[in-house]
């Protein structure tokens, strides 16, 4: 199964993320978002803890990715490993690991709710995400 794939979007960035279960979907969505910024993913040297909530799975996914963008801006890091400690439809706790954001050349302003649906398919889970750049 692919982790994620970029989708054509005229002005912004869009991609589809996949996973066998919601935890893998959330991790692959994060991986996709950092990969699309260019510069490659650093080795997992620095660990940060993340806790987010949302009224439903879609809101939780957007809040999770926006939290990672905030950590990126705050610490100048990008992340390559995502370990879910708790994941329900409305709450997430995770440890994320990564390092300095050397080579990042495309800053994502935010993750949007546009067209967003987290779906369970015959192969697993998937979500389409549009990023404002």
């Amino acid at each position, binding site marked *: 199964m692919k982790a994620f794939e970029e989708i054509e979007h*005229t*002005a912004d960035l869009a991609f589809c993320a996949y996973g066998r279960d919601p935890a893998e979907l959330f991790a692959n969505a994060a991986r996709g978002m950092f990969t699309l910024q260019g510069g490659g993913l650093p080795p997992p040297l620095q660990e940060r803890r993340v806790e987010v909530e949302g*009224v439903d799975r879609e809101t939780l996914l957007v*809040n999770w990715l926006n939290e990672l963008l*905030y950590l990126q*801006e705050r610490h100048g890091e990008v992340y390559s490993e995502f370990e879910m400690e708790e994941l329900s439809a409305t709450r997430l706790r995770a440890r994320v690991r990564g390092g300095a954001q050397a080579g990042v050349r495309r800053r994502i*302003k935010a993750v949007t*709710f546009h067209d967003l649906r987290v779906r369970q398919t015959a192969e697993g889970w998937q979500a389409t995400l549009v990023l*404002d750049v």
Partner: protein
Amino acid sequence: MQKTQTIASKRDFAPVARNVWELPREFREDMRVPARLYADESLLEDALADRSIEQLVNTATLPGIVKYAIAMPDIHQGYGFPIGGVVATRVPEGVISPGGVGYDINCGVRVLASTLSVEEVRPHLDGLLTALYHNCPSGVGVSGGFRLSHEDLDEVLSEGARWALRQGYARPQDLERTEEYGCIAGADPQQVSPRAKERGRPQIGTLGAGNHFIEVDRIAAIYDGEAAERLGLFPEQVVVQIHCGSRGLGHQVCEDYVSRLQSTVREYGIELPDRELVCAPLDSPEGEQYLAAMAGAANFAFANRQVLTHQIRRSLEQALAGRVQSFDLHQVYDIAHNMAKMEEHQVGGQSTKVCVHRKGATRAFGPGSPVLPDSLRNLGQPVLVPGSMGTASYILLGTERSMEQTFGSTCHGAGRVMSRARAKKQVRGERLREELEARGIGVRAGSLSGLAEEAPIAYKDVARVVEVVHRAGIGKKVARLEPIGVIKG
């Protein structure tokens, strides 16, 4: 929540005037008003090539929308609203949609006109571009040289460019030549989250990345000599353009409210075809809180462009003092192109208070508007339309017809037609820089692949976009600018 989408074709649009097309309310059952698009046939076809029109139709479903959902000729696919979208909702029962303003609240453009000709500046251009690149930090995750305390930042959020004036970063005339005099009323720093403030505090006086830029231009053509003279513009004059917004602070304000409203929108019983359109009634606590936070972020952006103006004046001083006889830089105007504003417009023959969302569209108030300063009142508001990198930009004036037809709005730029990924495959940043330099355009860029993503090939022809608004009468051409130097993150 998703409705079955109907895909529009050219046949669905009826021409209502030259370069104005209407999609009737019956096109989709959830539309509350018709949609109107300003375009020539070729730009209409461009708009039909991606999901722009579907997004325009989605905005026509917003509660309280009046007259039409409008799109400008630079329309392109965004998220929620199309870029180039204008929606007015009736006060107080209509809604405010944070996603309809966007993440870069008060992203906008400022044009500063020098007293120098291109001939005088050309020998010192290299030094000027280097000084600008050094003094106006750009790129991913860059901080500025200005340190704001928590109290300072609250003052910036409340006062906008007035704060900059008190700090000595502005002249009184700069504020007079800024939309809303550089300060949106009703800002409340309490409604801006601590995280948004934390992100904004180190970023004042920075340009950011993406499509933001500083450009040194020459006045390449003048279409309205009298208006140009009134604005202090002359042929072959050197002018400087700034394009940037509210940086991480504005992004966080939008994010906070788009996320928060996901649950409250259900409580208000509002059904939407796209969750990014999430909104709240203008008179609800959530609506009022967002408007107060948005005004704060908008004021941050006005202050940011003002601090950059100060830095640009310093750069000129560094690069030109003692080398050219005398020089100065006066502000032509500063406009916002991602905003929601409380304004009075004619609806059904009556003056009505509405909240005008402009997402990638520019305010274009016509002559006589009481909100314009005395020096511009009988002329109309200057409108600044940046083209894609290395092409042309335009200065227009707002018109009576823009007041009648588009809630005093017009286009904001060229509008993309090609994704960043495809542009990067077709254009190499290094090659593009060589081509620009061969045409006498100096380039300072933090990232060559970022440069490639902004290649002119990825955009519509700005001349065509401007021609449509000029012919439709919702903007009047005054001057064309062509670049001699580009600074990009």
